């Protein structure tokens, strides 16, 4: 469904991606693991159209979206839940969700509003604070909001950048439950995670990104969990 080939991107003065090939299959959860600075966030930002790659291509459902603007990417049915949530702090929860449905408001406002109500049903946490400013929400609530906001674009593929970042374990589990549920509803998911254990429990396929290159590509079973973590975070065995 999503194909990334030979992607090279600079982030500021850093060449963050040095030729990355990954793919996400339809209806599955694909996970990209890797230490900080490996280029995971850059990868997602490039796919989502926030950064322009220097080389390589991004194809989504057979269409080339390499140079597309982020608005066009959203239009194609691809949404990114950014790192650190990036909710609109001075807008209410409801307004954040409306902003998520921005591209649909002009065409079919009624449907978008109905979706909004459904979204609030699905995330009771948000429903409880629907008129509160997003900036006052806790980290977990903000993460839920960011996911819900991305879902409001009606994506067929969801990119998630470290959804567990800075969240307490209980909340992390909740987030992952939602990821699983979304996937069961048919949304393809490309997940970038640091919390390897949680990620591997949901992922169907994973990539290991290290210093801007893919270091490993396989099914979760292909490597022992410990080995994965060891390689990803604590250095190669014995290093």
């Amino acid at each position, binding site marked *: 469904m999503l194909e990334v080939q030979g992607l090279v991107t600079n982030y*500021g*003065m*850093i*060449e*963050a991606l*040095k030729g990355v090939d990954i793919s996400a299959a339809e209806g599955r959860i694909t996970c990209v693991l890797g*230490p*900080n*600075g490996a*280029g995971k966030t850059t990868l997602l930002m490039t796919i989502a159209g926030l950064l322009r790659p220097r080389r390589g291509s991004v194809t989504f459902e057979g269409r080339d979206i390499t140079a597309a603007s982020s608005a066009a990417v959203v239009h194609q049915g691809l949404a990114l839940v950014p790192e650190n949530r990036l909710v609109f702090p001075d807008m209410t929860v409801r307004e954040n969700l409306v902003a998520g449905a921005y591209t649909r408001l002009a065409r079919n406002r009624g449907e978008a509003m109905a979706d909004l109500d459904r979204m609030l049903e699905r995330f009771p946490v948000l429903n409880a604070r629907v008129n509160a400013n997003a900036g006052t929400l806790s*980290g977990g609530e903000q993460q839920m909001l960011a996911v819900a906001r991305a879902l409001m674009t009606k994506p067929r593929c969801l990119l998630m950048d*470290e959804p*567990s*970042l*800075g969240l307490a*374990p*209980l909340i*992390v*589990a909740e987030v992952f439950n939602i990821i699983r549920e979304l996937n069961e509803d048919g949304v393809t998911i490309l997940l970038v995670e*640091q*919390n*390897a*254990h*949680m990620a591997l429990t949901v992922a169907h396929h994973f990539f290991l990104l290290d*210093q*801007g*290159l893919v270091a490993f590509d396989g099914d979760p079973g292909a490597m022992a969990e410990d080995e994965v*973590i060891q390689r990803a*975070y*604590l*250095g*190669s065995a014995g*290093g």
Partner: protein
Amino acid sequence: MLELHSLSKHFGGVRAVDDLSLTVNQGEIFGLIGPNGSGKSTTVNLICGVFPTTSGAVVFEGQDITDAASHRVVAAGIGRTFQNIRLFGDLTVWQNLWVAQNSVEERETGWFARWLGGQRRGRDYAGELLKFAGLADRANELARNLAFGEQRRLEMARALAARPKLLLLDEPAAGMNAEEVGQLATRIRALREHGMTILLVEHVMELVMGVTDRIAVLNFGQKIAEGAPAEIQSDPAVRTAYLGTADA
């Protein structure tokens, strides 16, 4: 040499650093690791006086430098690099070092001589640093035109130009390839040979495990473990921090 006493920093309701105490000894390479968002960079910024602390104290060589202005921290003998490289892009490589030599010479010659000092002053030392950083032939290039790896090296050289006693390296290996990481490790060890104390904040474990003497692990702003690299690698609390809890 450097002591943090119950250091805390709260941003609104978020406890970025929470009651952190640790001691870095003279001549040691000390590693500070932890998952993303665990408060490592905030700790560095607190030591360097970038933000005011919420509570606690920073003591360097017996001198309380809590909340001292950044340039005073440098004058006290602490140099640093940044996670996301902050060079003076419109200055040349050589000028980047030159600027940083400012504070050393203030100590040595007073401000007037320092400001009016010609280009020659400090050139030898800068030349040495450039050689050390492998940038000797790039001295007149604008910093922004350097390759990424060169920029990292220049930033380290710039920190050294102020002749610090303690060097804070904030993720110096981020974005480097294996070969560059190897060179970095060599360089860090060489610095220690020269008597430099180093506080290394890093994610690249090959580097941390390879060069440090002791490591402290942060999670949610708190220290969850401290010890030699081997101890840390097998510490269950550390695993949990990186893993997340398996069955929540």
